[in-house]
């Protein structure tokens, strides 16, 4: 980031300040994790969209190509949401998606499926990612949540040094003067 900010220095006029040394980022660890999971989600979604046939073959789920493509689209939208300012919603949508993935894989984890071993591996991988998603979702939610502190009561902050009633009276008299003068 330091480099990019310094690169734009050439666009600045002589009297404008230019970045000498960038300060530290204050993004939390979970914000970083959200970004990584967001990009991962998009990449996986693209693979599911274009490689649905091969995935279906490898998991012994022939006939489920369209479902896999739909899941790909879902991954991409979760990814975009995780990269946006609504990253909490993005990561929780990933967690829900993991649930769907696991349910679908379980339905293929049958003894009569010749690719049962592959399905087992896929299940383990998805479970691992789901764990990361849950950690990430909980983390960003906690970091950006309002919960925990009670909203403060600012009812003593009228902003009118003489009080609200006096301000109303004042407004009335100022109006009176205006219409009197007119």
């Amino acid at each position, binding site marked *: 980031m330091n480099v990019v900010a310094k690169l734009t220095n050439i666009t600045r006029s002589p*009297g404008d*300040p*230019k970045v000498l040394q960038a*300060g530290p980022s204050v993004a939390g660890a979970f914000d970083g994790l959200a970004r990584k999971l967001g990009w991962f989600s998009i990449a996986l979604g693209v693979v599911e969209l274009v490689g649905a046939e091969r995935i279906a073959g490898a998991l012994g789920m022939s006939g489920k190509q369209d479902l896999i493509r739909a899941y790909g689209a879902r991954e991409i939208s979760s990814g975009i949401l995780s990269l946006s300012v609504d990253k909490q919603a993005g990561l929780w949508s990933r967690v829900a998606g993991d649930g769907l993935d696991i349910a679908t894989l379980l339905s293929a984890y049958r003894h009569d499926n010749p690719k049962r071993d592959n399905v087992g591996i896929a299940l383990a991988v998805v479970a691992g990612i789901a764990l990361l998603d849950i950690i990430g979702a909980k983390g960003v939610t906690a970091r950006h949540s309002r919960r925990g502190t009670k*909203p403060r009561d*600012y009812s003593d902050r*009228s902003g*009118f040094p003489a009080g609200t009633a006096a301000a109303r009276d004042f407004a009335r008299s100022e109006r009176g003067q205006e219409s009197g003068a007119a």
Partner: protein
Amino acid sequence: MRALVWHGKEDIRCDQVSDPEIEDERDAIIKVTSCAICGSDLHLYHNYVPAMLPGDIMGHEMMGEVVEVGRGVNGALKKGDRIVVPFTIICGECDQCKRQNFSVCERTNRKKNLGDKVFGHTTAGLFGYTHLTGGYPGGQAEYLRVPFADATHVKVPDNLTDEQVLFLGDIFPTGWQAAAQCDIEPTDTVAVWGCGPVGQMAIRSALLLGAKQVVAIDCLPERLSMGAAGGAITINFAEESVVERLQELTGANGPEKCIDCVGMESHVSLAQPDTVYDRAKQLMLMENDRPHVLREMIYVCRPAGVISIPGVYSGLVDKIPMGQAMNKGLTFRMGQTHVTRWTEDLLRRIVDGQIDPSFVITHTVGLEQGPEMYKVFRDKQDSCIKVVLKP
């Protein structure tokens, strides 16, 4: 010097940057004594307004002491003067400035071509607000170069604190203009959407301009409590229907005057399905803004009423019920604030003790804590309403 610098979406840092220098003879340089984070800065923090570059310095609410003046400032300012800097940079000489339409000054946007292309006609240069409005470095920094300084300043007396006068540069005149544009009558109900800093100023301005009743709408209890303190009846939109309550409060007429102090980032919730629709379209880059408040105002406003819009919109909005607006004969008033049009009168009101805008400040911190405070303000944590930074 140190400054808060934009590095990307949700990435503002306290950087070391070079000091500003006088570039034009009408420039002055101030040592910033106080500056603030504005709701408008959040739109940049979220990267909703295009044309920010990594390395841009944030901030457009600032004041300080003059430490250097160019030759062309011609005695309008001298070293040691204490000034508030309006966020709209003005030349004071062009046709629009002469008409006091300061936020559309024709000469101060140094990237006029870009402004002309995007808006049809350029608007004024703004501090710390993207390259569409000149790419001028902002004032969340230790020092600031003020272009056209002979016109772009408000001198303030020494016996008032920074906190009392700082908001003359933006949110106080913004709330005031929003109310003034409503041409308030003593029989009017003025409804204010959004109880952020701008909404708080609009509530008090509407009261001082003689509204019969002011209604304040938000979903955050601490902000509603501050709105009530300013004399408003409050509606918590997360708990009650805004339209029903407004009808009740106005004998089913609807408020005569409606003020949008929310702008393009309306709260998204399933209870307001249109906001989810807007958010989805935003994510697909098919819409810039979430105009829920505009739709609600048009629907509920009394026919022949006024819709006043200080809330910032950046580009294309969708599903605006033009048929309702047209047939109800509504008047729309909007714009970036013509700050200097109002400052003399508002400063007098502060001096006279009619109002003290410092009521809105909830957090005061050093510049290094600025990046973290962007998050706290955005996430509405710790009952944060207005952050003042002391460089």
